[in-house]
């Protein structure tokens, strides 16, 4: 499975290019409307083309991401996929309670993290050593909160709550407790 950092890099490039382009367009527009032009008539065809472009863009974005981001279809269909490992984790009183001191996963494994909250709404995220995020989900009390993830690289990850659960929950961090190792 492609690493989430690769997807983030792609998004960074795409959005940066767009942001620079739209800032330049607005700058150009601001300059041009203060000048007399040959024609001030706006073509209706251009308007309808723009509308069509927005429709295509809005619909195609999700189709493209669904077919290129591997965890998206895996997430939707996770009930039909058999995980290689299952970790049942409980959260209570602003503490993560793990099934073992370290969660060991083999490279290539699909691991299911099934997290239950006994009191508040929390978050559950895995983070790399450079603090970047691998993935996250919400942990809602009274409901099943499970996420399936395939680990294709060895590494060590930190668990951190990604949702605010009051000031007591600001440092819900378990450092380096997930280890992904080669078989």
């Amino acid at each position, binding site marked *: 499975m492609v690493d989430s950092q690769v997807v983030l890099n792609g998004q960074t490039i795409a959005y940066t290019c767009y942001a620079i382009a739209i800032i330049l367009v607005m700058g150009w527009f601001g300059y041009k409307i*203060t000048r007399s032009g040959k024609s001030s008539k706006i073509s209706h065809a251009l308007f309808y083309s723009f509308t069509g472009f927005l429709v295509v863009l*809005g619909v195609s974005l999700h189709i493209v991401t669904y077919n290129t981001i591997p965890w998206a279809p895996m997430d939707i269909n996770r009930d039909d996929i058999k995980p290689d490992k299952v970790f049942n984790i409980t959260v209570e009183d602003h503490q993560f309670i793990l099934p073992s001191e370290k969660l060991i996963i083999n490279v290539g494994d699909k691991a299911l993290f099934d997290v239950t909250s006994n009191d508040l*709404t929390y978050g559950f995220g895995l983070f790399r050593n450079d603090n970047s995020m691998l993935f996250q989900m919400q942990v809602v009390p009274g409901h*099943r909160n499970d996420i399936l993830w395939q680990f294709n690289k060895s590494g060590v990850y930190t668990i951190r709550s990604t949702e*605010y659960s009051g000031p007591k929950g600001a440092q819900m961090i378990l450092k380096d407790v997930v280890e992904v190792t080669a078989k």
Partner: protein
Amino acid sequence: MSFKNAFMNGEQGLFKPASLTPMQKLILRFVVIGLIYYGFAVIEGMIMRIYQIEPIKAISDFQYFTLLTAHPLVGIIGSTYSLVFGAFLFLVPFLMKKPLWSFKLGNWTFLLVTIGTLTFWLAGFISHYAPLYTLYWPLPADFSQFNPVGGSIFIIGIALVMVGTVFFVINIFKTIAYTPEGWEKQPGGALLASAIGYSGLRNLFRKKKEQVKHLVSLPVAAIARGTVDTALNAGVLLFTGVLILVYMIAHLLGGDLKDTAIDALLYKNWFWWGLDLIADGLVLIFVAGTWYLLATMITGKKLFMQNIARAALLVELVVSWTVWSHHLLSDQAQPGFLKIISGEMVTAFELITQGLAFYITLATLWSARPLKMSNELKFLLGGLLGFALAVPAGIMQADIGLNRILHNTQWIIGPHVHVAILIGLTMTLYSAVYILFPIVTNGAKLYSQKLANFHFWAHLIGGIGMGAFMGMAGLEGMLRRTIYLNGEFNLYMILAGICGALLLLAFLAFFYNIVMSLGLKGVIGIFTPSKLNVKDLVPSEQK
């Protein structure tokens, strides 16, 4: 003119509070209070920016999260609601050429929003009640972390604002529909049908010669449709407030209620449905309507593709009722069909509706070139740019795949929320303030154009820059709603802090410019009663 004279009497002594009608005074009161609360939000934001670089020892974790709770509420409810309500209570009668239905109710809206905001702000400040604006159940009723007395006062403050909001809603719809004294009987039902878009919708299914005319102008239609969402939102927040209050009062009386009686996911759906009526409903609809109004006022021309603009506003209204699930894409128990249909597909429609509003406004401006680059025009262009940046950022995160690695990071709150509010919404509101300033002050003159220019550039660069650096930190994993103790993202946070300081300077320049334009006596005069007729929007000699 000497500094002292300008400070006391305003630029060239042109502002005469005694010449103002009660309606002009009311809108100016809304503006002054809105700007003061904006100042609260900016200062709170700046304190948090510094805290993100290096936690301030004098401020505890609890106080930090109190600021984080108060900051968006004071910014949106205290400031934006005041500015928007004031402007629309003036503009709807102004555009319909009839008096406001009830001046008293308008005054009550002002008082309740002002007092309610101060109440919840003080309650949070003193008691450290900090469940954030999201209030995820059962956090607002977690009495191991929060004081129920402070929490009750906090919720009562929010409730006061919502009651004021309900009064605003009644006043707007009544003003559209009622028949003023001495007027020929107005078709109230038909006016309301036109305002909310029902008659326009029926026209789509009628033959051309049977189609009915639009009875209200497009900006009034936009205000009416945004007000529908404002009403629904007030209902949701009031209901939620009462629910939380019941738990607090029960706790204070010594009988704790089971928090499991409320389903946390259902609550989250309910609350986000209501909350999103602000973010994706009234903000986008009000903003589109304001863009249309500003474009026509600046150019003196008719709006480009007016019928499409009306239809898009109606689509946006329906979209705003069905998009909430994009906030729950990381909630694994949320049904998949809601994630895909509401969270992804319907949300993508906002790209279309807001894109159309963007294009229609630009086309209207283009059709009138050459235009003078006035303050209202440059701030309008800034507002358009803000939404052009923030809406696509929001569409990207409203994707099942991308949300997995973006949810609750600084990306959400930076390039999407702060750019939308600070650049898109606030610059649109500033444009409205600049264009309405001579109308509501009976011709007062701006003290300094240089300060207005500085306000524009500092706000634009500060807002976009802060959003961009927060976004970069978010893409590298920095979460929102937490504290980093070891300077993990310091480079981005220092840069975002510098941009935040620019925003603060921009606000101070604007505030100073307004005070010097009106003068201290003038600002005080706004809060004294007017002797003119409450039915007059502007003095009768100006009509």
